[in-house]
């Protein structure tokens, strides 16, 4: 039984129910199964179902089919309750027990915390106190997991009072994306890449998590989080870990996470010279005028919250020593795109360097995580005709098209994995702790007042971000 706390919220509407519908569409939901939504909002069952139908029609990747929807609705329920109210929670538990009997779900529970972080501890305690003896219980926790190292540890201790580590599924939906998993397949299922996947053959790695949108009305949240806590500390570091990790001995949760955590431990905390932060001012995105961050609703007019972070990171281990990982995240950048680019060393002695002119570029392997999942290999090729002119050719492997099927949404994969008890694509507590090592960077920011805004909406961030790479004789890739 899947219990969604925060069932009247945006995440449930945009992601969770469309994911459940996609699973029902493909007959991937277990049988027996039930989903119970709960939130403070007073709604009747029928009202909740009507809202979810609207959400599925708007956000699902599959066409709407009445028979599939009827099947899903037949096992969907809603309970309005205040999470801190004992009587409300008792009523919820009574419904769950009743459904267990009626549907035969045997006390197996997944509690999905799709609520703001402030509500985590209360719900965990209420659920923990009422957990039954029959079946298994799992807890899915949305990011952010704490707001710094101390709060992450405190939350972790709190949850561990009622739940064992193997029952906790900390979600980072980036790990549910097909291309992130394909990065693992690319590295470890192909003999040609792994031998050259190291400092000897790779000049540098570049990871970009770019969003063209602003904060979309989430001013209160973003003022507290900023780019470093919203994206950098979790999604970006997970991408880096998957890119840089050693081959796991197998694809079990523990093996994969053991290797990822080693990478996170090896990241050298960057000094102030290796980190650039920025905040967008007015500009144009897709031809449309965009307001400055400080003009957004819920944002202080003198806010120093960063909407952009670029950094030069080093993974201090045998494989990656001295290989820079240039990373950047930001809002109101020219386009929405998440990519991992591996730039290989230049050919040591191209015999036609003088003839080829400006066309000689190093090989680059680009893994596109979103929005168009795929892989691009940049190779130098001779221009047909006389002479020996060389130019870069992009060979694009478009992931969705190759298999002639639409790709599953990250949440489909992750919810299904949680149902199966497979935590490979979820974050372990020691990974979270290592990710919060970035606290040291944030601490240095408390001491100065940056000159914000320092980049226009619709551009690739402030000039110092370009200088960060240019100082090393390199440049950010053109997106």
């Amino acid at each position, binding site marked *: 039984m899947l219990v969604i706390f925060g069932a009247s919220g945006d995440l449930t509407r945009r992601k969770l129910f469309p994911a459940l519908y996609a699973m029902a569409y493909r007959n991937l939901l277990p049988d027996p199964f039930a989903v119970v939504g709960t939130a403070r909002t007073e709604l009747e069952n029928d009202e909740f179902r009507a809202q979810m139908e609207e959400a599925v029609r708007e956000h699902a990747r599959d066409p709407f089919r009445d028979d599939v929807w009827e099947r899903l609705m037949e096992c969907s329920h809603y309970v309005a309750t205040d999470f801190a109210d004992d009587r409300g929670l008792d009523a919820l538990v009574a419904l769950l027990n009743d459904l267990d009997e009626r549907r035969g779900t045997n006390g197996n529970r997944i509690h999905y915390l799709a609520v703001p972080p402030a509500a985590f501890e209360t719900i965990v305690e209420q659920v923990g106190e009422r957990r039954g003896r029959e079946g298994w219980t799992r807890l899915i926790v949305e990011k952010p997991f704490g707001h710094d190292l101390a709060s992450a540890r405190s939350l972790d201790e709190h949850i561990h009072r009622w739940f064992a580590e193997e029952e906790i599924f900390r979600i980072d939906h980036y790990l549910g994306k097909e291309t992130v998993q394909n990065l693992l397949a690319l590295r470890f299922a192909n003999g040609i890449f792994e031998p050259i996947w190291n400092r000897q053959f790779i000049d540098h790695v570049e990871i970009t998590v770019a969003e063209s949108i602003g904060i979309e009305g989430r001013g209160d949240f973003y003022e507290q989080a900023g780019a470093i806590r919203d994206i950098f500390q979790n999604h970006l570091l997970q991408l880096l870990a998957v890119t840089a990790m050693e081959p796991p001995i197998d694809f079990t949760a523990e093996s994969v996470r053991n290797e990822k955590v080693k990478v996170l431990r090896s990241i050298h905390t960057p000094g102030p010279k290796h980190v650039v932060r920025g905040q967008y001012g007015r500009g144009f995105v897709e*031809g449309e005028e965009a307001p400055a961050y400080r003009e957004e609703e819920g944002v202080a007019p003198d806010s120093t919250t960063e909407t952009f972070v670029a950094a030069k990171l080093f993974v201090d281990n045998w494989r990656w020593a001295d290989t820079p990982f240039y990373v950047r995240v930001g809002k109101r950048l020219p386009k929405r795109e998440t990519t991992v680019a591996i730039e290989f060393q230049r050919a040591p002695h191209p015999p036609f360097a003088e003839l080829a002119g400006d066309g000689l570029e190093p090989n680059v392997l680009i893994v596109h995580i979103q929005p168009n999942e795929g892989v691009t290999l940049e190779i130098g090729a001779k221009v047909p005709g006389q002479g020996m002119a060389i*130019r870069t050719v992009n060979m694009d492997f478009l992931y969705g098209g190759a298999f002639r099927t639409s790709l599953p949404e990250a949440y489909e994969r992750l919810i299904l994995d949680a149902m199966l008890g497979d935590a490979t694509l979820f974050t372990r507590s020691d990974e979270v702790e290592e990710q919060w090592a970035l606290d040291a960077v944030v601490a240095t920011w408390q001491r100065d007042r940056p000159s914000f805004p320092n980049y226009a909406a619709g551009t690739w961030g402030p000039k110092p971000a370009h200088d960060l790479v240019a100082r090393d004789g390199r440049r950010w890739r053109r997106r």
Partner: protein
Amino acid sequence: MAASVGEIERELAELREEAPEGGAWLRTSVLTHVAWAPPEWREAAEDALAGLAERHPSRTILLVPEPDADEDALAAAVDLRCFSAPGQEHHVCSEVIEVRLRGRRAVAPASVVAPLLLVDLPAFLRWRGEPPWGDGAFDGLVDLVDRLIVDSTEWEGELPPRYAELARLFDRVAVSDVAWARTTRWRTALASMWPGIGGVRRLRVTATPAQAHLLAGWLRSRLGRDDLELEIEPAEKLVGVEVDGEPAPFPPGDPPHPSDVLSDELDRFGRDRVYEDAVRAVR
């Protein structure tokens, strides 16, 4: 009709899936070609595009500004043009995106183009007509691309000050000029007159004013002399050159087709210093 960059990408992805079997998901590209084509230039721009895709598998972004439209909106049509490679089973596909920039969406076209550029590949901007020197829309696009391609034959009025404006861009972007490319055969013919041509005093050129100025500028800069006089006999194309009253030998061959000229310019990388010197020597 797509109304956002996201919709354009989605429609392209769908087109690729519908494209000829066996090749749609493998895209090969060598450049992004951006063409600024106000409505009066659209037909000519389409003509130049014909045949280009076969030689340069690319993404073409045709920008049609409509600043006087009633609404502020993007309206984009996407097309996948696939060609059979001679003697092979696979297809070469090029993507053509025509974006109408309506109302205030024409103010900052670079912000529309930036998300559509192909990753890492060179980007070329073909600007139809005379560029609006110093205008934000033009400057934004210039800073986005590797090469600006103009045809100074399309400019009207006194040319020397316009070439001076163009020369100010040389340190920001590599520049090609179709008018210059069309003088290539004649420059070869004039060079064959060396060393006699070294003492030339007067040049009479029957051509477009742009071609005449560029030929004279080229001779001045190559010879290191500023005292060369130019007399222009206006014509629709370059048909004759007299050097101190003597006709220069007529070069062999036919003038190239517009798409061939554009195609050749798309093969160029880096700055053309000879052209830059010629532009700076226009008087």
